[in-house]
């Protein structure tokens, strides 16, 4: 951290005043420098690279993200040793800068719908890459617009007249040396977006563009010189990279939310407004119950997501070890879990931004989780046991034997006990999974098409997935508490955990009431308890965001400064606005004055 902050090459200019082109240029400048410095300091550990990166770019995306985050890892996991020899070192040395081109203008998460084709021509031993329609233009990949000279392109493989599904190809797109697009390649920037100004998200159109046979990534599936297709072991592997990206997004959501909380809570401690008591000075707005109610549940959420992010990263690391050894048994649960958690956390953290990097869509993710849940439920119904995070479904058949299962459960919830609240969330998830599965069954009995039935139940299914993810998060948060040895830290995090869980109940009272997990009286207590917790957490609020330990330049916020000198700095900052560069703006002479003369 200090390495970056003290390095004059990375000094901060105010991004808010730069145009998109300037922002892109600055990002490129810093990325280029960053790579050099990484080599210079000999930093190679992925975690360290991540931290270094996040300080160079102050948490902003950069054009080389996809090169480092997707292009290189895909080479490592899907290229043959021969291909690695050819591409990896040049890519590592940045002679090749690559991106990952999956999403098309008309097609997102549904991989099988992609239209780009790669047709094998045995005569020349080449693949012919083609974008047959407007909707098949590759759209969104980061770094594609202006930066990259290669792309890993996902396309439908045709050989010997047959479609063999999606495969990955290494496609050179710009001339080495001049950086001009190659003949047959149309490539450019997709224009301004909602944020992510420094990223040159791009489009790519290929007109019968030829690449050698050896440019198909062939570690798993292969096309032989005569065009014979050799199948891979498991097609689930294509999802591997996506799972990895999603797990990063979960962590990113926690990170963005922590920053937002830091800014909002520090500012709320500095800002004074109105009066609570007649005659007294205006109080800090953080003393208002309504302000606490807005911010503290988010603070609790930031902590909860932080723990979830750590959990997923660990699980991913563990499972990917198994995958390398050919054990794919845990991949479905991981895929389902990362899909749901990615959607849940980015929804909640309102960081819906990241999803666009992949143009994946949260509802689709939730339904992927739902598919897994329904499958697990069906397994349980047929007498099999399920394992992992869904093992609570194993209890469902037993509960059904008891006639008054619902009423029997309700009294046991203790609203001051995190573990008891985990049980409440578990019961809600179980009920909603069961209800969705049953509704699905009813629909299936009524109509021929399985797909129609699925569609007509999808609102229920999304609710079930949300409840499942919510349960997982509360569970992980509560489990974390026992690992904390410092009593004071444990006490404050227990309060946060309770707030997170109880606030979730308030936001979903209907679910808990309708299932009889909690009574009306308990809901009233929950409301009361949440308000008490706000007052309890209030004295620690600033300390809790200080613990996130964001440096001021990383926050990039006038309001969230560590020293709280908000107003002075806002004034200083405003004076730098481009509109203030001249005392009298030129539009006065151009427009205002002539108008006053005319009217």
């Amino acid at each position, binding site marked *: 951290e200090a390495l970056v902050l003290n390095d004059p090459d990375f000094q901060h200019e105010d991004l808010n005043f730069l145009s998109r082109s300037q922002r892109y240029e600055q990002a490129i400048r810093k990325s280029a420098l960053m790579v050099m410095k990484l080599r210079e300091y000999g930093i190679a550990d992925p975690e360290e690279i991540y931290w270094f990166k996040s300080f160079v770019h102050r948490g902003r995306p950069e054009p080389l993200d996809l090169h480092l985050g997707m292009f290189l890892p895909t080479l490592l996991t899907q290229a043959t040793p021969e291909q690695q020899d050819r591409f990896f070192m040049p890519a590592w040395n940045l002679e090749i800068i690559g991106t990952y081109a999956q999403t098309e203008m008309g097609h997102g998460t549904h991989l099988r719908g992609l239209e780009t084709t790669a047709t094998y021509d045995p005569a020349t031993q080449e693949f012919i890459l083609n974008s047959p329609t407007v909707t098949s233009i590759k759209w969104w990949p980061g770094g594609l617009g*202006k930066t990259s000279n290669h792309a890993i392109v996902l396309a439908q493989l045709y050989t010997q007249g047959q479609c063999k599904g999606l495969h990955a190809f290494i496609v050179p797109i710009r001339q080495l040396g001049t950086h001009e697009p190659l003949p047959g390649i149309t490539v450019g920037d997709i224009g301004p977006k909602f944020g992510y100004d420094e990223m040159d998200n791009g489009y790519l159109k290929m007109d019968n563009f030829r690449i050698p046979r050896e440019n198909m990534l062939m570690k798993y599936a292969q096309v032989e010189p005569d065009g014979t297709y050799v199948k891979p072991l498991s097609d689930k592997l294509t999802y591997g990279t996506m799972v990895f990206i999603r797990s990063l997004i979960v962590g990113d959501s926690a990170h963005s939310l922590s920053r937002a909380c830091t800014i909002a809570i520090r500012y709320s401690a500095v800002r004074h407004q109105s009066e609570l008591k007649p005659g007294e000075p205006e109080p800090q707005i953080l003393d208002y119950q309504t302000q606490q109610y807005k911010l503290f549940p988010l603070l609790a959420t930031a902590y909860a997501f932080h723990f979830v992010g750590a959990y997923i990263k660990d699980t991913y690391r563990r499972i990917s070890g198994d995958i390398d050894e050919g054990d794919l048994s845990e991949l479905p649960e991981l895929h389902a879990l990362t899909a749901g958690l990615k959607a849940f956390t980015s929804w909640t953290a309102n960081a819906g931004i990241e999803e666009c990097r992949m143009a994946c869509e949260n509802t689709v993710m939730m339904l992927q989780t739902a598919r897994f849940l329904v499958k697990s439920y069906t397994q349980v119904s047929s007498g099999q046991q399920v394992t992992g995070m869904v093992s609570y479904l194993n209890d469902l058949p037993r509960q059904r034997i008891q006639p008054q299962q619902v009423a029997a459960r309700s009294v046991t919830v203790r609203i001051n006990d995190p573990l008891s609240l985990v049980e409440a969330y578990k019961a809600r998830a179980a009920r909603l999974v069961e209800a969705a599965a049953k509704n699905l069954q009813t629909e299936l009995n009524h109509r021929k098409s399985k797909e129609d039935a699925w569609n007509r139940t999808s609102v229920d299914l999304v609710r079930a997935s949300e409840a499942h993810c919510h349960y997982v998060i509360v569970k992980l948060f509560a489990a974390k508490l026992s690992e904390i040895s410092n009593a004071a830290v444990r006490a404050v995090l227990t309060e946060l955990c309770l707030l997170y869980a109880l606030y979730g109940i308030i936001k979903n009272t209907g679910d808990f009431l309708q299932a009889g997990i909690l009574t009306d009286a308990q809901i009233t207590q929950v409301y009361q308890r949440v308000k008490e917790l706000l007052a309890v957490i209030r004295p620690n609020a600033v300390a809790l965001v200080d613990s996130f330990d964001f440096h001021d330049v990383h926050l990039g916020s006038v309001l969230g400064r560590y020293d709280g000198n908000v107003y002075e700095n806002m004034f200083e900052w405003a004076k730098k606005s481009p509109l203030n560069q001249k005392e009298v703006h030129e539009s006065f002479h151009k427009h205002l004055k002539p108008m006053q003369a005319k009217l």
Partner: protein
Amino acid sequence: MALPETSKYSQGSVFNGVNPDLASERQTASFSVEKLTAWLDGGAEHTRIRRAVVEAIESDPVFSRENQYFQSQNERYEAAVRKAVHLQIKMREMGWTENGPESKYIYRALSGDFAFLLHRVFMRSIVVLGSDKQIAKWIPLATQYRVIGSYAQTELGHGTYLQGLETTAVFDITTQEFILNTPTISAMKWWPGDMGRSATHTVVFAQLYIHGKCYGVHPFIVQIRSLQDHSLCPGITAGDIGPKMSFEHTDNGYLMLQKVHVPRENMLNKFCEVQPDGTYVTRGTEKINYFPMTTVRISIISDEVIIPLMKACTIAIRYSVVRRQSKLNPGEQEAKILDYQTQQEKLLPQLAAAYAFHFINNYLQEQLDRGYKEVQRKNFDTLPELHACSSGFKAMVTQYCTSAVEVCLRACGGHGYSLLSGLPSLYTKILASCIYEGENTILLLQTARFLIKCFMAASAGQPIPPSVTYLAAVKPGKCPAKSKLDFLNPDIYIEAYQHTAVRLISSTAAKLQDIIQSGVKKYDAWNQCTVQLVQAAKAHCHYISVENFAETVEKLETKPAIQKIMKHLCDLFALHGIFSNAGLFLHDGYLSGAQMDMVTASYLDLLAVIRKDAVPLVDAFDFTDKSLNSALGSYDGQAYQRLYEWAQKSPTNKQISPAYEKYLKPLLHNTLSKL
């Protein structure tokens, strides 16, 4: 029928015809789009005038928004000033006047991207708060743009709470002037639009001091820039506050006053005056200072909130029938995403809300007109109700619509995130509306204060204003619905909303009493109840919205086809509210768990019904392609071609990137160390 409409809406389109996926949606409309449009406008004559205004403005290249998404803050500001100036010429040319029937459509046609909005607030505040003499002096000057006005209330450290303002105006008997001063950095005026670069004058709100005694906040007309060369007047520091999340075209400004002298006549004095000897005279009530805010609040609901939501719905729904994704049934082509239940459940409730709030806006407008007439007759009795009403609805509608636009944005997946979709700019604009002209939580608490007061009065048998009479008729009990069809009966759901609102208000009132009786000071007790008070105020506004929608539908009996589809939307709006706030309705057992399942079933059934009319329902909002300015939402549905074509216009594609020569090339050629 498709052909003439295409040419009417999509002038200048380079693409051939309407995308068949969108055309087919228009074949099956259950009602006449043209008739619905006319009804929404308040009659066919209004529709004609509106289209004429839109046509006149959009055909004029000065008003073009074509490059808006690629422009910098400086360029946006300059374009906004150019448009505002050109508008004056245009209005003369067309014979439009400020008070004519055309004026309300001009703003819609320009989509807000022009300067001098605060100039209108400046004029409005003089008309409402100024004496006849002041009106006679300033209004002609302002009308001819001899002066350009702004409205400076908010300070760096102080917002909605007027009494907290720090700027002072001290009356100096010897010179017969007020001396205005900014005593601290947090007292600096901050945010007023048009003030950073454009305004020559502004209405400054400051604490009035006479002979050392403070008389509270009053409005003063202060000149800030020279009328000759536009340089800042002595004692004035002013400038632009820098980039914001939206409103790039507006020069929101800061203003610091150092012993600035203004003549005694510059205090707006319709309701209170400082006489030459320093005597302070009031005529009327201090509450009148809030009246300009009330009118501004109501006007932004329509212009800044409901229209953006209608546009967002138009874009998202049209795109959702053009976009195909995954397969519903194996072997078929990929399905339109609007055929997915989850997509319907995202978008159709937002569409219903757009209609609900359009009707609430009519209701508020009527209330305001009535209130304004009373104020003119110096009767201030209706002000508390009007103020409570405008505050609550401003908060509820802006909050609801902001989430709704965000839902639309996310429902378009990645392409919604591109500025070219038009959705991000609608979202950032509407998000600002939650904050300016009164922060929403504070506004809801003002409404809550009014509701609690009325509830107490009703309990004591005193008369209460018309919009809250339901508080007097508290009926405990249970919802009588027996089947899911019962929940399509407005009486059933209106009563459920009424019951919930009353329950929340009465239980909070009771709790407030309890806390006070236990010895806690009144203001502490209030702060301990604020979370629930906010909830109660929202429930009240939600209830009025549902009831008003149902009443609007009832009045439609001469137009059966429109009435039918409006009834569906009304049902959807109401049931969506119950579905999303189930706990509030289940809490005291008013609805049972079984009834909640009926609500859900009816609610999901409605989605499939309204799905068929979704495109005609957004077509009826009658936005031209130019006004939507969206690559995804155009009338002809050629979303992908347009997106590709617009992206190629991006300045980033026109030049060879300087970053390549400077940084990438050395990087690629591994000569970085020489940098």
